């Protein structure tokens, strides 16, 4: 039996349901994997732990991965794209809503993961929409529904929250304006070391097979309650207590996973990657143009789904 170590970028939450559910439902065990799930703090930590061979694979942000791979030669490769588009939403108040990307003009915008790529892609989107990004004051805030209170207090004009934050905020209050963003980047990816993959590809194939099974099951499920119950049996996952929001949360996440079609669940969709690399290069966020196909592999997924 192979052991498989997987690290999530944050405390276990429903955004990471495919791995959590696959583990809870025993899918990994069925594949002969002894799964070890670790919760990290920060996408960077997840990547670092994978690079350091402490973990076999980890989940991290797509844009950050591309930048770190191209600019800093991080020895990683994307083995799957779990969130096909950005998992972030622009949250603002109904009184002063952000309905289009251009509405961001002149606002103080909070975001959890401040840094070149996140800011860069936002700038890119705004320029694309004909708005001036220089007028936006981007500040770091916690990615938590609590940050909405900063909007309420007038300290911020909008903030970028992940799916859970969005669900929790909009179910807690009725004055939350939500706008999904599609920055053209692959949202969240699973990364692993190429040399580890070469050494023992079967392990990764088994991992992807089980994960895909879980993800597809969630995407297809009419009623998410049994899935949530299963998860809760094995793991301490935030957001499970409130079944109503938990269902919404999981459902919204699942929509993202399948947003490029059910057949593309977990797949690194070539067109998306192509476009993303192009955008990043245009914005000078990556210093050299590389063929997008070098950044990911769908081999493992193909093999996993073939068998």
């Amino acid at each position, binding site marked *: 039996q192979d052991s498989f170590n997987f690290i999530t970028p944050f405390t*276990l939450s429903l955004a990471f349901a495919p791995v959590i559910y696959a583990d809870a439902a025993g899918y990994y065990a069925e594949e002969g994997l002894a799964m070890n799930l*670790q919760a990290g*703090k920060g996408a960077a930590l997840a990547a670092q732990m994978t690079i350091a061979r402490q973990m076999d694979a980890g989940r991290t942000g797509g844009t950050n991965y591309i930048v770190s791979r191209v600019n800093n030669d991080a020895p990683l490769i994307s083995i799957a794209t779990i969130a096909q588009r950005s998992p972030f939403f622009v949250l603002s108040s109904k009184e002063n809503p952000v309905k289009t990307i251009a509405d961001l003009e002149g606002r103080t915008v909070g975001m959890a993961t401040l840094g070149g790529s996140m800011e860069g892609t936002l700038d890119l989107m705004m320029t694309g929409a004909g708005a001036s990004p220089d007028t936006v004051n981007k500040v770091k805030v*916690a990615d938590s529904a*609590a940050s909405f209170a900063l909007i309420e207090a007038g300290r911020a004009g909008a903030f970028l929250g992940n799916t859970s934050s969005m669900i929790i905020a909009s179910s807690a209050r009725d004055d939350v304006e939500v706008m999904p963003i599609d920055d053209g980047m692959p949202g969240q990816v699973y990364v692993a070391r190429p040399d580890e993959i070469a050494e023992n590809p079967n392990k990764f194939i088994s991992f992807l097979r089980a994960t895909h099974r879980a993800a597809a099951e969630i995407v297809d499920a009419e009623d998410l309650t049994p899935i949530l119950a299963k998860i809760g049996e094995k793991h301490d996952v935030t957001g499970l207590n409130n079944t109503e929001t938990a269902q919404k949360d999981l459902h919204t996440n699942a929509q993202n996973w399948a947003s490029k079609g059910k057949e593309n669940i977990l797949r690194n969709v070539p067109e998306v990657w192509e476009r993303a690399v192009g955008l990043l290069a245009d914005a000078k966020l990556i210093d050299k143009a590389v063929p997008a196909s070098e950044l990911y592999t769908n081999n493992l997924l193909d093999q996993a789904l073939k068998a």
Partner: protein
Amino acid sequence: MGTDRFIRIALPTATVFAFLIAWTVYVHTAEVSAFILPTPMQIVSAFIGLVSDPDIWGHALVTVTEAVSGFLIAVVLGISLGMAMARVQMLEWAFKPFIVCLQLIPKIALAPLFILWFGFGLESKIVIAAALAFFPVFSNALVAFRSVEPGDRDVFTMLQANPVQRFTMLDLPTALPVVLAGMEVAVVMSMIGAIVGEFIGGNEGLGYLAVAMLQELQVPGLFAVIVLLTLIGLTLYTLIAQLRGWLTPWHASVAGKSRDS
């Protein structure tokens, strides 16, 4: 003594109540969102819910273990290094800048290294707690051991005291009041260290729980966890403060001994 003890309990209780009332009034008048600052009442009911869940004690135990272990390591290391450097000037010159640098490095940046070396378990959090708690003890020990009066040293020299006797009967009693002040800071730091460590990784402990609560926007729950953390920290702190009375009863820093002047 009777009234003294009464006042010692009554006064802080009164202050806390005054504070809670001011807080409640502030939340209502300033209309602060409950997502940022709940009222004390909301926190109290969340707290009751929290402590009636038996799971919580497992988390609390983890955090206490981390903090206490880190604290003890910090105290032992801080006192011995402080003592050594107080004795040998060269050691201070050689290593103090180094120690200061280590303190300055943001621990979060080194998180991967901690995990690499110590894993996701308690060890890495104990290390962070010890690292944070070390400096106040060390810094105070250094100045305190230096403050032993040369005339007192001479007495022990003449009495042919061995190093251990010198340490236990002269250096330590002289240094204790100030070292204890450092330990009071350190015990707080070790709690913070444990919590920071739990923020960084792992899925146990009250720090982890706090993050989890925040993500779910259970803000009263978050504050309830903070209250629990604070109570634990205050208990540890009180223990150290008690030590002051037991270990240095002769010193003016012992509560109730000082004179208004």
